């Protein structure tokens, strides 16, 4: 009549592949790999890899309420079953009849008054002791500890105790009615576990309290009133930690501080049915609630020691779903890592399940990546040793680090050179730094030449606003049809000119200052760089076909030149503007086979209808600056802005830095840079680039501030402190608003004034002495006194000399000849002489002395002060990894 019996699972304490399921009967299973030779028909798949075989069934013990597996090796597979009437029966499964447990099997332990047996627990050390927790019966005891080796009660003792056993019991003489210990009078016991720290201690969940019984003194008990009295279980990795539960809430107890739970876990809406510590993993608790198909896991691995109430421990909570159906029970495997078997609430469907360990992952500030999974720790470093050209591009962090060391971004004169500092192999960076170079050059010239160009709007920032904006406003665009250079042949190509277009061409680098100088300077620099095809194309677009041919010839004959350029030159020389000529027909089709994009666009240009230059404008292999310059010459006022908008959007979307030419250092430019940073993570380039922008506008953008702060943090993380200081100085020059105000002052103990500022209000003391020819540097003798009140400054705790540094003197008050030989070293006070003090104990002295003291000591140099000053400074023991 067993109704609604909840299934449970027990792993064999000694056979890692045996487990028992108990519901209305006991079933012994062996788990093994699926498809192994042992598996036969009738095995139950538990997972993709494992299957179970039913070895034995035992249905001798009806009314099962709880089962516990004998903990010792021998006899194996001995189970204690607690029944609804409180009797505890020893039984076995799958054992031959002459096995060692034969004399124990069938033994019954009968309480005086019948009531449900709620829980059983074998003593882990003295395995003859079996504790049974029973429901309440009036004044009777609810915790009975049976000795399974005890002799059967004799007839005499039965009679004397007025025990009326049923006829069956009398037949079998295997009934024990006298427990070794009786505990918990007049109470009910819901759960039990033996404490690992002392096998004489038994923890019991009683009716309204948790009690610890000591078998050495059963009249005493330690107890705490609580509702969380179900399922008490000791953490196998932490013998003082115990979990218990009540309805939907788990309480975690520390036996050393037993007055109240050290923490309670978030309450579940449904009552809990099982709570179990993972035996193979520290601090992992699994819980199951009624009618649920998930197991909730609580990771208490990083919980600080639960002594003291100050720190609320952190717990990571997550859920796993081992199977689709509702879970009846689960059991952790005793040795296999994070593994459990789950049995469904109905139909005894079993699942073998391993809880996948959370992966925690951390990037280092350099390129290595580390992650931990289970008991494994993986370190992933960037491939490619120094000097070996890797096929894979280097990580941006590596690049930025190298670039920071090569002072990338710091060339403020020849700005374009920064791309060389960056390694000189990134075309986008090259384009960017040339753009910035031309922008700054134009800006400087513009300022210097006293606004020679009478452009509308904000003259200061127009060069920063990018070609897209520059050419948007057109003032008197002139259309002209010019002759081919060196030929009187008239072209019908309309060419456009305006002040804005001229500025744009200069920003593209095509044109030097002044319309007369033209493109020749640019062509020569291209020839120097052996960019023959590009030079030829630029010459051609400037309608100088002869120059183009000449350049190609030069390229063919130059050292390691490409002889094919001669062939191209030949083809070029045959140019005719006859619309239906064979030349035109062949060139427009064969040009696509030319590998070099510049050669390709040259023929595209020559074979295009006037005003329809898509072959040139949308050839993405051609540098943006060249296409933009081309567009400024050959597109009408109607066409040009449309093309610019289109190209700008393309660049912004791709985060292509060449687009900075179009956007300038405007909001558009920040948008473009944003998508570049999103793509590459290169906050270094972003920071340096935006610092070049006109102050105010773009620098106020929170994105820009974010890049700059991140770059500074990166430098700090790499311990590039000198680089970071350098960057801050550089930033302060370009963006004065970023300079932080001084926040720390050294004030005089006597007058209370800052020793660095009060001097400015006072005439310098030294002057008077030097007038009287006092030997030695007067400023030097004075640095140790307050410039305000002339009282001595504090003494260094080590050398006992008064402190003071020349920096506390105001610049300009010293003698003029002293200024002359101020080398970099002397200009600032030697770091060794700096004031330094501990924020904790307030003792201090010269920085150099303090540093050398703490190289050998941990405590403060002031006697009787035990402050561990240097250990309080988390970065105090680090050394910078850059050299300044």
């Amino acid at each position, binding site marked *: *009549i*067993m*109704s*609604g*019996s909840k299934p449970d699972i027990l792993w064999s304490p000694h056979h890692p592949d045996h487990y028992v399921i108990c519901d209305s009967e006991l079933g012994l299973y062996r788990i093994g790999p699926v498809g192994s030779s042992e598996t036969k028909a009738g095995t139950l798949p538990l997972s993709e890899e494992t299957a179970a075989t039913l070895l034995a069934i035992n249905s001798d013990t*009806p*009314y099962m*309420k709880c089962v516990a597996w004998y903990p010792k090796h021998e006899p194996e597979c001995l189970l204690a079953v607690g029944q*609804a*009437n*409180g009797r505890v029966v020893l039984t076995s499964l799958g054992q031959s009849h002459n096995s060692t447990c034969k004399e124990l099997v069938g033994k019954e332990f*009968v*309480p*005086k*008054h*019948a*009531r*449900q047996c709620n829980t059983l627990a074998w003593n882990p050390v003295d395995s003859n002791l079996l504790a049974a927790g029973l*429901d*309440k*019966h*009036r*004044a009777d*005891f609810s915790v009975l500890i049976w000795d399974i080796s005890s002799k059967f009660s004799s007839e005499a003792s039965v009679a004397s*105790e*007025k*025990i*009326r*056993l049923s006829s069956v019991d009398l037949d079998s003489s295997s009934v024990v*009615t006298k427990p070794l210990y*009786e*505990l*918990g*009078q*007049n*109470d*009910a016991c819901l759960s039990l576990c033996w404490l690992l720290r002392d096998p004489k201690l038994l923890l019991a969940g009683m009716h*309204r*309290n948790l*009690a610890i*019984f000591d078998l050495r003194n*059963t*009249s*005493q*008990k330690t107890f705490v*009133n*609580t*509702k969380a009295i179900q399922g008490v279980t000791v953490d196998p990795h932490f013998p003082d930690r115990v979990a218990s539960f*009540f309805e939907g809430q788990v309480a975690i107890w520390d036996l050393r501080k037993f007055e109240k739970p050290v923490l309670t876990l978030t309450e579940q809406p449904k009552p809990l049915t099982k709570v179990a510590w993972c035996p193979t993993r520290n601090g992992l608790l699994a819980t199951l609630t009624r009618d649920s198909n998930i197991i909730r896991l609580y990771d208490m691995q990083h919980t600080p020691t639960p002594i003291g109430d100050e720190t609320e421990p952190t717990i990571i909570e997550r859920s796993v779903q081992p199977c689709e159906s509702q879970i009846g029970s689960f059991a952790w495997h005793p040795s296999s890592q994070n593994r459990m078997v789950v049995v469904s609430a109905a139909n005894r469907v079993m699942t073998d399940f391993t809880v996948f360990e959370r992966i925690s992952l951390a990037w280092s500030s350099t390129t290595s990546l580390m992650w931990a999974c289970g008991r494994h720790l993986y370190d992933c470093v960037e491939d490619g040793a120094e000097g070996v050209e890797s096929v894979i591009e280097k990580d941006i962090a590596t690049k930025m680090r190298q670039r920071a060391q090569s002072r990338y971004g710091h060339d403020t004169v020849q700005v374009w050179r920064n791309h060389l500092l960056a390694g000189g192999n990134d075309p986008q960076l090259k384009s960017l730094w040339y753009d910035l170079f031309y922008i700054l050059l134009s800006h400087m010239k513009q300022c210097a030449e006293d606004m020679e160009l009478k452009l509308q709007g904000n003259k200061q920032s127009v060069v920063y606003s990018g070609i897209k904006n520059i050419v948007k406003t057109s003032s008197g665009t002139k259309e002209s049809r010019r002759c081919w250079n060196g030929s009187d042949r008239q072209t019908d190509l309309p060419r456009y000119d305006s002040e804005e277009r001229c500025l744009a061409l200069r920003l593209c680098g095509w044109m030097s200052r002044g319309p007369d100088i033209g493109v020749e300077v640019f062509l020569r620099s291209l020839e120097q760089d052996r960019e023959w095809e590009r030079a030829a194309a630029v010459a051609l677009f400037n309608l100088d076909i002869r120059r183009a041919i000449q350049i190609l010839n030069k390229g063919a004959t130059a050292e390691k030149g490409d002889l094919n350029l001669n062939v191209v030159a030949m083809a070029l020389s045959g140019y005719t503007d006859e619309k239906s000529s064979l030349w035109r027909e062949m060139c427009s089709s064969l040009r696509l086979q030319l590998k070099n994009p510049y050669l390709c666009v040259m023929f595209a240009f020559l074979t295009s209808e006037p005003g329809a230059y898509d072959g040139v404008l949308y050839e993405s292999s051609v540098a943006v600056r060249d296409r933009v310059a081309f567009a400024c010459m050959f597109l009408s006022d109607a066409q040009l802005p449309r093309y610019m908008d289109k190209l700008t959007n393309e660049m912004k979307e791709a985060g292509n830095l060449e687009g900075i030419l179009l956007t300038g250092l405007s909001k558009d430019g920040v948008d473009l840079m944003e998508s570049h940073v999103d793509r590459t993570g290169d906050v270094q380039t972003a920071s340096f680039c935006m610092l070049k922008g006109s102050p105010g506008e773009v620098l106020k953008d929170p994105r820009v501030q974010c890049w700059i702060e991140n770059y500074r943090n990166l430098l700090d993380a790499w311990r590039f402190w000198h680089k970071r200081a350098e960057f801050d100085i550089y930033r302060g020059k370009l963006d004065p608003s970023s300079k932080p105000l001084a926040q720390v002052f050294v004030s005089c103990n006597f007058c209370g004034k800052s020793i660095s500022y009060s001097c400015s209000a006072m005439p310098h003391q030294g002057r008077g002495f030097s007038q009287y020819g006092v030997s030695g540097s007067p400023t030097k003798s004075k640095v140790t006194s307050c410039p305000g009140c002339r009282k001595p400054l504090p003494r260094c705790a080590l050398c006992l000399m008064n402190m003071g540094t020349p920096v506390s003197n105001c610049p300009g008050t010293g003698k003029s000849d002293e200024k002359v030989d101020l080398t970099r070293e002397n200009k600032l006070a030697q770091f060794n002489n700096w004031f330094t003090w501990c924020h904790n104990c307030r003792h201090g002295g010269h920085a150099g002395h303090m540093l050398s003291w703490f190289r050998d000591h941990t405590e403060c140099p002031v006697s009787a002060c035990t402050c561990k000053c240097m250990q309080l400074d988390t970065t105090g023991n680090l050394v910078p990894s850059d050299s300044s």
Partner: protein
Amino acid sequence: MELHILEHSLKVASIEKEGIQICTHGLIKLAFLASKTRCKFFSLTETPEDYTIIVDEEGFKELPQSEHISVADATWLALNVVSGGGNASNSQPIGVTKIAKSVIAPLADHNISVFMLSTYQTDFILVRERDLPMVMHTLSSEFTLLRVVNGETFAAHDLGVTNGFVNPHVFNHFGFSVPRPIIHPLSSPSNMFCVTSLDPDTLPSVATLLMDVMFYSGGPKESGASSEDSSHIRFFSFSLIEGYISLVMDEQTTQRFPNNVLFTSASGELWKMVRIGGQPLGFDECGIVAQISEPLATADIPAYYISTFKFDHALVPEENIQSVIGALRTKSTAQ
């Protein structure tokens, strides 16, 4: 020793036999479908006169209003004695005998009316809620008083009601306690009773049988049996208190249950009943329980005690019934 003042606010009601059918829906729900109600304390006792229901406020909502139901006007609180685990003696007498001297007599001396309910698991002493301060004052010297609030126990403090109360304990001029005479007539039915329980999980399997026993006992079969033996009494008690089931029924009724469902104690005791009262006892008279339990305690005879709306019932071991009757008769005739 601890005295727990439980948190249930209880009502005591009587349902007339002819009115039982209008209540069966609620009663079945309270007895067998505990998860459908928030009731934590339910007891039903059938006597030849009526059905006595003891139920908490949540459970009381399940009962209809009807002229067949009389409700005692007070709200009652249940007290429960818990002896600490430190008590080494395990040969304590069972039931009211254990608490006769420590609880019942002092309350009687202070004119506090009690209503008793013994179950398989424990004894509940019901007192009127309004008497609680006096109860606490009376028992605070003997017991650690604990109040159960929301399932957890807290120390209950004596409410400091000493002032104004005179100690009504009756002393003669020699300073000895005057023996309590037995006032009400006693009778002892012939049938023998079992106090038992069962696993709540098996309750559904015997629910129809229990319903039959509870509600259909007045059938012709039963009346035929009672005519054979005029001193045979119809008495059945079912309680479901905080998840624990307790049953009191006569030996014949236990025969109807399948084997191994009922918890029969290893000693398999059978009990005989002493019925107290010729006229309905009412709720105001105090000292009735004390009159019976004190002599039993003196003789160290275990006993259960179940009060119903009209009469009280004590259960004593069958082998002791003659000596009990003798002792109690002596006391009543001595008056």
